[in-house]
């Protein structure tokens, strides 16, 4: 069951990037934080909006979309940001 922060992040990423594929994982349990924490996340965003953009710009866009969460409780965000074409190649490998 996704926590409230995870649900908000999911909504924001969906509306910002209109992704063809989106994964959001709460990995806080892997870190030294209280049970049920929402501090460490991993996100996979596949969107055509990333076409022609270098990694740093893609990651900045994701950070910007989740800036409120990063300012409050979330302090680690691992990002994979791919174009649909790159995603298709990586899932075939």
């Amino acid at each position: 069951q996704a926590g409230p922060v995870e649900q908000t992040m999911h909504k924001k990423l969906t509306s910002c990037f209109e992704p063809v594929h989106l994964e959001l994982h709460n990995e806080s349990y892997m870190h030294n934080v209280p049970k049920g924490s929402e501090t460490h996340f991993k996100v996979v965003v596949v969107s055509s909006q990333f076409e022609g953009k270098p990694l740093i710009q893609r990651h900045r866009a994701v950070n910007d979309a989740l800036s409120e969460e990063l300012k409050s409780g979330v302090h680690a965000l691992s990002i994979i940001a791919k174009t649909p074409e790159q995603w298709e190649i990586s899932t075939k490998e």
Partner: protein
Amino acid sequence: GTEDSRIATMVQNNKVVVFMKGVPAEPRCGFSNAVVQILRMHGVEYDAHDVLSDEKLRQGIKDFSNWPTIPQVFINGEFVGGCDILLQMHQSGDLIEELRKAGISSALLE
């Protein structure tokens, strides 16, 4: 502010500069450790700054680079990214090219 100018000096002080949790010999977070391991593979010498021992730096570096998380890697005074970006650049070979532009030959080419 003064913190910005202090950090601007720090990132110019070496070709590769890392802001991390802990020190290279003893990283205090898995993401910082990953950056240390990647740079070790490439045989890169760098300056490392421990944000856990400097509360002003911990916030200051985030404001300076407009990047919300630690670690942060700078090459030739330019912000390159955090752990994910460095790892993906390592995997794609782009890191070797980025180091080359800074006049550093990666140990992986030897």
